[in-house]
């Protein structure tokens, strides 16, 4: 499986059918009156299926807010937003939740695993959310954990795992239901440099497929090499998109930080 992703993804401009997400003129403000803060100031951003897109920028520039909007967790004040061919602005309530359940995988900085569930059970949660039976969901999650090298840890609880292992469980959870968009917020920020590399390498190998887009928010430049493209954000706007050709370089550089 890992080999299947080691082909460079075409970097030619894609037509609309290849876009995983596209937003134009997105604004988002919090609060009102005196305490009003405008966080997104007209964001244009797109990510294609088959690529790993990094979203980088200084702390507080609005990265997390942007991916929250992309995931349908926050409603933008204005702008158009299309994710996997669906206009998210038009989805409401339960439909939006269902859309997330079926199409989006999440990886968080703090792992956010349930402490009272085993690794396999944690990874199975998205399947349970889609009414897959408990036994089948845990089995499927276990297979995903195998691919992440956690064979021996399936039945351990998060507290028995290292940070890197926990984030690998989180990767399994983000992929187990084969979502077409995976959103990661600072996935390596709680890990030491070496573990961060391992986790990113696994994420790169397992998450990037031709039918899926991966967005990684980070400000850790030591992992930039895993990106296909990098969008730089400053003060509520995307100011620059650079090509990184992440796949080839990632394979070459993996294991040797910087």
């Amino acid at each position, binding site marked *: 499986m890992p080999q299947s992703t080691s082909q460079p993804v075409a970097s030619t401009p894609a037509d609309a059918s290849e876009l995983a997400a596209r937003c134009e003129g997105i604004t988002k403000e919090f609060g009102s009156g005196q305490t009003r803060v405008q966080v997104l100031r007209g964001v244009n951003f797109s990510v294609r299926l088959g690529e790993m897109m990094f979203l980088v920028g200084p702390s507080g520039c609005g990265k997390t807010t942007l991916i929250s909007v992309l995931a349908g*967790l926050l409603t933008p004040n204005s702008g158009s937003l299309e994710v996997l061919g669906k206009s998210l602005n038009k989805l409401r309530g339960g439909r939006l939740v269902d859309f997330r359940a079926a199409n989006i995988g*999440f990886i968080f900085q703090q792992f*956010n695993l349930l402490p*009272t569930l085993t690794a396999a059970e944690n990874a199975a949660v998205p399947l349970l959310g889609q009414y897959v039976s408990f036994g089948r969901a845990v089995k499927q999650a276990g297979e995903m954990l195998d691919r992440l090298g956690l064979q021996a840890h399936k039945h351990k609880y998060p507290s028995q795992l290292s940070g890197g292992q926990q984030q690998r469980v989180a990767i399994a959870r983000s992929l187990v239901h084969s979502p077409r968009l995976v959103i990661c917020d600072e996935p390596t920020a709680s890990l030491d440099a070496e573990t961060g590399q391992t986790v990113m390498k696994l994420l790169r190998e397992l998450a990037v497929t031709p039918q899926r887009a991966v967005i990684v928010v980070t400000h850790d430049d030591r992992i930039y090499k895993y990106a296909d493209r990098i969008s730089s954000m400053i003060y509520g706007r995307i100011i620059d998109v650079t090509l990184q050709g992440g796949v080839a370089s990632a394979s070459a550089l993996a294991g040797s930080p910087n």
Partner: protein
Amino acid sequence: MYRIALKMLFGDRAKYIGLVFGVAFSTLLINQQCGIFVGLISRAASVIDDTPEANIWVMDPGVKNLDTIFPLRDTELARVRGVPGVEWAVPYFKAMATVRTQTGELESALLIGADDNSLIGIPARCVLGDPFDLKRPDSVAVAKDAFGKVWRGEEISLGKTLELNDRRAVVVAVVEDLPKFTSSITFYTRYSQALQYTNNGRNQLSFILVKAAAANDPEAVARQIQAQTGLQALTSDQFRKKAIQYVIDNTGIPVSFATVIGLGIIVGVAVVGLMFNLFVLENLKHFAALKAIGIKNRRLLAMVLLQAAVVGLVGYALGLGAAATFFETAGRSPNFRGFYLPWQVAAASALVATFIMLLAALVALRRVLFVDAAIVFRG
């Protein structure tokens, strides 16, 4: 998701135990206190229940309970017997007497005099001796529980003698009666013998016990007796209710029990409510993550309700079990005799447990339903 809800609950052992304990404590307190309360106040009518043969009690119009009695004239017996629908009517004597125990201490005792011929008024269950020996002079039957109070530490036996109001009495039978409200020692004897013990001559009729003829409605017969004699005539049920109501209206017993029960409920609500909220609060970021991942509010709601239901059910079962154990073990002591766990109380406490959990869940649910899934990305 239900499996996950349960694992969340059981995984947090300390809080789970605390929650279950809170519900169990409330349930135990409610059942134990209500059981004792019901047992205690029904003692106010246990004299009636000891005499199931009669279904109407006739008494002075001013009588409100079984303890404050104004005697009727002997001639009333014949008048009551003359009322249509009366199958039989017998005299019944009830008064307090003083006994000197074998150690020389004085105790007050209840003395009941039953009809000389029929012995109606003597409890039916005889554990030793023969009630018909009461026909012998100076003979009494003693309640089983009372025996040990007069003859401390002794096995029940016949032939014991004692001073009853300064007059000799011989025990010829030991009977099992219901515990009384006002006294813990009861002696039974014939009506005429009872009059001798109390040194009062004529017109000492405490009650007239009546059995309504089978074809007649006891209530109608009671009304008829009342109309014809001017006395107060109540069916056993009416009198039981009246006597119990008297205790409820005129003693602090209901208030003190209600206070304890109320405290039990308040502590239950407070402890369980706070702890369940804490449980949900600690899991809030996990609920938010589940929301982000795509679990709908409806299912999160079901998860929380399931958690509450499990806590409620387990806590209730433990509390009820503990209450039942109490009545099984402590209930064997004579002081608690006749106390039991009425199913109505068990059912009511199930409602209370449900109420506690619903209240706790409702407050907690608000948090879960309104938590912003977007917090998953925030530290």
